[in-house]
C-alpha cells in the first residue's frame, strides 16, 4: 500500500434528508444507501481519524477546529426542522484537532480550536458524521470553512491537514461536505416532486461527476471558480470544497473515482462520491493557477471579490454575520488597507496620525451623531495637512542638485537624503578647495573642511525635512582618495557622529560629478 496519509476521500451532501427522511424520496434513499456503503468502507479501513471539512460551518475569525472531546446535542436545521431532530454524540480526536490547528497556524492561517458545550455543530457535519461514523468507532475532526478564505487559504488548509497527519503518523479518511449545485427551491416542494433546480444545474453537476469518476480531482480544483460562476448561488458562495479536498489528498489526478449516488435535495445537487489514491492516471495537466505553501495574506482584510462563504442552500448556518463584499463594494476598504494606501503614497507618520484621527472620529461617540461627524471632519483635515509634508523634498538652503533628483524623499517612517557633497549653497564654491582645476590638474585640498561642509549641507537638508542630525540612522560615505583622506574625514566625522552612533559604510570611488573629494548619503528617521 502507499504511504499516503489519506486512505480515501469522500464527497457528501450536507442536507438532512438522507439522515431523516430517506424513505420519502427515491433519490434521498439512494443517497442514504451510498452513505451507508461509505460507512462500511470506513469501518473496513485502517483509518485513525475522519477529517470533516464542512461547508455549512462558516467561520469568520480564521478557521475553527472542533476539539470538544464528546460534543453532544440535539440539532435541528433552520429550514428543515419539520423533518425531525438530529440527536448526536460524537467523539473528537482532540489531539489531532490541536495538531491540525498548529499546522494551519504554521502555514500562516489564523486558526483556533473550539471546545464548548452546546457549540452549534452545523447540519452538514452532523449529517455526515451521524451517517458515516454512527458508533464513533473512529474519532473525528471537524474544520470550518472560513467565509472570506479564498483559494490560497483553502489549499493551505488542506496541506496543513496532511502535515498534521504525517506529524502524528495517522491515516485518515477525509470528508468534504458540500452540495454540487446549491440552488434550492424557495418554496415548499413535496418530496416526490423534488428535482434538480434547473437544466443548467443538472448539466454542470453531470460534468463535475464525470471529473470525479475519472479521478480528476486536481482538475476540478482548478475549475472551482468556473463551477462557482455557473451553479452556485452567487451572492453567498465560492465553490471551494474541491480546493480543500485536492490539497488534502495530494494535488494530483491519480485516483479511482466512484460516484455512489447523485440526487436532488430540495433542488440542489447531492452526491456521494469516493476517491481513492491509485497508480492509474489521466495524466498531469497544465494547471493555470500557482501552488501555494504558506498563506501570507492579511487575515484582517476582506479581499474584494474573493470572499467565498460557503452556503449550499438553507442548511448553511449563520451566513450574514460576514457576507462577502459585492462587486459594487470594491472601492470600500478596511482601515488596514486604507492605512496601507496612505503609507504607499505618503508615508507612515501620516498613517499613524490618520488612523488615530479616524479612530477618534469613528469610535465611541457618547455625544451622538453630531459629535461623530465633527470628528470625521477633523480627521480629514488632519490627514490632508499631514500629507503635504511628504514625498519629495527640495531644501531651499542646500546646494542645488546636479541632476533630476530631490534633496530628500520621505517614505514611511524614513527620510532618504540624496548624496550630498561640500559645495557652498550660496556660491557653489568648495570649502577646502576643489580637488582639480578646470583642465583636470590635481590641486591640494582640505578634506577636513570638505567633510565639515558636507555634514553642514546634510544638516540643512534635514532641517528642511523637520529633522536633525540626531535622526540619522545610516551613512554611506564616498571618498575619491581613501589613502589620503580617510584620516581627516574620520576625525570630522567623529566630531559630529560619535554620539549619534549611526551605522556607516565608507567606500573609495573613482570620481564624483563635481571636483569634490567626499560625498555622503544618509538615511534618517522621519519626524
Amino acid at each position, binding site marked *: 500500500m502507499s504511504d499516503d496519509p489519506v486512505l480515501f476521500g469522500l464527497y457528501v451532501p450536507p442536507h438532512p434528508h438522507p439522515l431523516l427522511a430517506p424513505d420519502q424520496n427515491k433519490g434521498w434513499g439512494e443517497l442514504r444507501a451510498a452513505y451507508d456503503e461509505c460507512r462500511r468502507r470506513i469501518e473496513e479501513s485502517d483509518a485513525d481519524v475522519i477529517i470533516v471539512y464542512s461547508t455549512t460551518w462558516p467561520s469568520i475569525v480564521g478557521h475553527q477546529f472542533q476539539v470538544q472531546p464528546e460534543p453532544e446535542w440535539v440539532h435541528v436545521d433552520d429550514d428543515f426542522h419539520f423533518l425531525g431532530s438530529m440527536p448526536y454524540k460524537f467523539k473528537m480526536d482532540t489531539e489531532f484537532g490541536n495538531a491540525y490547528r498548529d499546522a494551519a497556524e504554521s502555514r500562516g492561517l489564523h486558526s483556533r480550536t473550539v471546545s464548548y458545550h452546546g457549540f*452549534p455543530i452545523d447540519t452538514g457535519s452532523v449529517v455526515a458524521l451521524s451517517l458515516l461514523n454512527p458508533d464513533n468507532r473512529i474519532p473525528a475532526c471537524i474544520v470550518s470553512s472560513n467565509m472570506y478564505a479564498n483559494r490560497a487559504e483553502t489549499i493551505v488548509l488542506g496541506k496543513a491537514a496532511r502535515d498534521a497527519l504525517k506529524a502524528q503518523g495517522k491515516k485518515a479518511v477525509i470528508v468534504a461536505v458540500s452540495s454540487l449545485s446549491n440552488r434550492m427551491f424557495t418554496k415548499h416542494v413535496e418530496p416526490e416532486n423534488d428535482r434538480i433546480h434547473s437544466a443548467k444545474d443538472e448539466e454542470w453537476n453531470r460534468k463535475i461527476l464525470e471529473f470525479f469518476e475519472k479521478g480528476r480531482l486536481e482538475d476540478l480544483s482548478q475549475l472551482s471558480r468556473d463551477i462557482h460562476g455557473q451553479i452556485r448561488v452567487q451572492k453567498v458562495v465560492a465553490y471551494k470544497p474541491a480546493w480543500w479536498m485536492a490539497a488534502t489528498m495530494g494535488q494530483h489526478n491519480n485516483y479511482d473515482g466512484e460516484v455512489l449516488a447523485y440526487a436532488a435535495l430540495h433542488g440542489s445537487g447531492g452526491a456521494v462520491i469516493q476517491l481513492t489514491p491509485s497508480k492509474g492516471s489521466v495524466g498531469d495537466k497544465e494547471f493555470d493557477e500557482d501552488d501555494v505553501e504558506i498563506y501570507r495574506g492579511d487575515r484582517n482584510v476582506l479581499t474584494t471579490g474573493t470572499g467565498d462563504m460557503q452556503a449550499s442552500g438553507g442548511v448553511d448556518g449563520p451566513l450574514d454575520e460576514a457576507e462577502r463584499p459585492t462587486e459594487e463594494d470594491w472601492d470600500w476598504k478596511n482601515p488596514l488597507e486604507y492605512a496601507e494606501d496612505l503609507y504607499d503614497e505618503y508615508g507612515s507618520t501620516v498613517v499613524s496620525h490618520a488612523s488615530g484621527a479616524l479612530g477618534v472620529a469613528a469610535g465611541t461617540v457618547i455625544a451622538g451623531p453630531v459629535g461623530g461627524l465633527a470628528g470625521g471632519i477633523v480627521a480629514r483635515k488632519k490627514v490632508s495637512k499631514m500629507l503635504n509634508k511628504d514625498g519629495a523634498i527640495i531644501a531651499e538652503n542646500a546646494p542645488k542638485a546636479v541632476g533630476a533628483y530631490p534633496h530628500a524623499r520621505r517614505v514611511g517612517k524614513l527620510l532618504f537624503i540624496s548624496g550630498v557633497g561640500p559645495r557652498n549653497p550660496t556660491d557653489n564654491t568648495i570649502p577646502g578647495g576643489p580637488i582639480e582645476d578646470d583642465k583636470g590638474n590635481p590641486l591640494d585640498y582640505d578634506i577636513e573642511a570638505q567633510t565639515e561642509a558636507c555634514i553642514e549641507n546634510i544638516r540643512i537638508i534635514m532641517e528642511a525635512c523637520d529633522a536633525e542630525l540626531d535622526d540619522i540612522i545610516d551613512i554611506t560615505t564616498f571618498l575619491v582618495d581613501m589613502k589620503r583622506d580617510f584620516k581627516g574625514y574620520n576625525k570630522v566625522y567623529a566630531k559630529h557622529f560619535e554620539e549619534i552612533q549611526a551605522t556607516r559604510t565608507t567606500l573609495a570611488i573613482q570620481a564624483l560629478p563635481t571636483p569634490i573629494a567626499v560625498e555622503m548619503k544618509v538615511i534618517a528617521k522621519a519626524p
Partner: protein
Amino acid sequence: MIKGEIVLGCLAPHPPHLVYADNPDENEPTSEGGWETLRWGYARLARKLKTIEYDAIVILTPHWQTYIGTHFLGCDSFKSLSVDPIFPNLFRYHYNLKVDVELSEKMCEIAGEAGIITKMMRNPDFRVDYGTITSCHLLNPDWDKPIVTVSSNRNRHYYSVEVMNEQAQALGDACRKAIEESGKRVVLIASHSLSHRHFTTEAPLPEDMSREHIYNHSQYVWDMKVIDLMREGKMQEFIDLMPEFTEQTMAETEGGGLTWMMAAMGMPNYPAEIYGYQSVIGTGNVVACWDPDEETREMVL
C-alpha cells in the same frame, strides 16, 4: 373585539459582545465590561419599555435564516443554551422563554393569505437564534413577556436586495394586519446593526475598548446618514434607500428587519428616539425606537 396595535418599534442590534459585557447570570463567560455607550442606551430604552403596557414582543432576526419562505416560532416555550457559532468565547446564554403561539399562528396565516411563503416551526428541540436572545435580553432582561421570532428569508441570495426590500414590506403589512386582528398590544423588534463590515480578527481581550472603532469612515458616514433620516422622521426615504445602504455597508438590513418593522408601523414620519451609537468589532450599531404615541415620544439624543 378591541383592535390590536403596535405600541413601539425598536431597532435593537444583537452583537453578543453586549451580553458578554453585561455579565448577566444567564451567560457563562464573564467580562470586564465594554461597549458602554450602547449598553447605557439599551438600559434606557429598556426602562421606557417597562412603562409601556404590552402583551408580546415580535422580533425579526437575521440569525434564523430560512431559504424556504418565512418561518414563525410555533411552540409554547423554549429552554436551552444558546452558543454563538462565531464568538462562542463570549456568548453561552441559558435562556428560558415563552412564545405567543396564538399571535405567531395569526401572522403566519395572514402572511400566507397575502401570498408569502410561510411555515410554522413546531420542533420543540429547535434552538432559538442568538440574535433573538441578545436583543430580547437587552430590552427585557426579565423575560416577562412572550415573544414571537420571525425568521429572515434568504431570498436576497437568490434575487436581489430590492426584492428582499419588497418582500419585507409585504411581510410587515401582513404582520400589522395580524396584530390588529389579534387585539393585542405588541412591541416590534428589528434585530440588527447598521453598517456591518467587521474585523476578522479579535483582540486578545475582546472588551479592550482601545481596539474598538468603526471599520472605516465610509461606513460611518453611511450610518450617520441613515440615523439622520431616522431623527428627521424620513423613514420612507430610508426604506427607499435601503437596497443601496445594504449593498454599501453589507448591512444585516438584508434580512429585512427594519423594512419589515417600518412597513408594519406604516412608515413613521415622526422622529425616532436615538439611544446610542457605537461600533462593535467594527460594525455600526444604533439603539433606536419609534413611539407612535405623541404623548410619550421623546427626544433622547
